[in-house]
């Protein structure tokens, strides 16, 4: 029962995130189309701000991936729990390990998908090899 509630809550968060991605993308594309259609010139600051939607989408997509992994893991555990308590005991250790792994992956993706926004610095990175 508890697992079902937990799963429903995760599903709800996932759906809200998916809708946020879709809405922000639609809004962004409408603004971009308006700018292009009217041949408006943006300064660097505004043009850079327009790119934040892409970063927000990537961040949310990474958390959706994490939620889906947790949902799968919970499903396996819930199944074992209903089958046999002994199996459930050993499964909880596996569940914990798995969830720790999901958290680590999610954190590293947050880092990877932030670009130079995370540093709060105005310095831009262009490197030639």
């Amino acid at each position, binding site marked *: 029962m508890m697992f079902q509630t937990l799963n429903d809550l995760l599903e709800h968060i996932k759906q809200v995130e998916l809708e946020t991605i879709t809405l922000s993308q639609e809004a962004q*594309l409408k603004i971009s189309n308006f700018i*292009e259609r009217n041949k408006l010139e943006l300064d660097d600051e505004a*043009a850079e701000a*327009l790119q934040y939607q*892409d*970063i927000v*989408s990537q961040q949310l997509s990474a958390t959706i991936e994490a939620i889906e992994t947790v949902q799968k893991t919970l499903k396996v555990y819930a199944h074992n729990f209903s089958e046999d308590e002994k199996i459930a005991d050993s499964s909880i250790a596996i569940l914990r390990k798995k969830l720790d792994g999901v958290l680590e992956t999610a954190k590293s993706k947050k880092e990877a998908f932030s670009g130079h926004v995370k540093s709060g610095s105005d310095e831009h*990175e262009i490197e030639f*090899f």
Partner: protein
Amino acid sequence: MNFLNTFLAKVKLIKEMLHIRLTTEVSAFNVRKEYKMGNPMVMFIDDSETALASTRMTVSSMPIESKQYLEAQQCLADVKAGVVPDLIITDLNMPVMNGLELLKALRELPATKRTPVLMLTTETKDELKQQGKALGLTGWIVKPFNPTQLKSAITRVLRLPA
């Protein structure tokens, strides 16, 4: 009579062969004319439509022809079909084929063996930059990019008049 028939058949065959050859050459010339005789062609690859819109707006005032792709495989298919870019700017994290996989595939094709490729990504990991460098990557640009700096990077790589 038999000799005449054979002769006519041979003439027809030669005529058909010539027609095929001429058609191929004309279409090859059109491709060259389209991409080599006008402005330099830059291919942008990103699985995000909004990211492509940002790059499109940024380069709209530049003397380049821009071609945009939401999938790396589509860009690769175009290159294989004879579309030869002068510069490729690609995202790294994309489903199915990522930027590094695309770079590797491009380096295996004679047409893009030495074409400059810039990675435009949110990733900043040194390990990934080194992987790109080993595959012959030209440069690494971190998102969100500064439009003036992206334009000057393109100008520099394509050696356009400043």
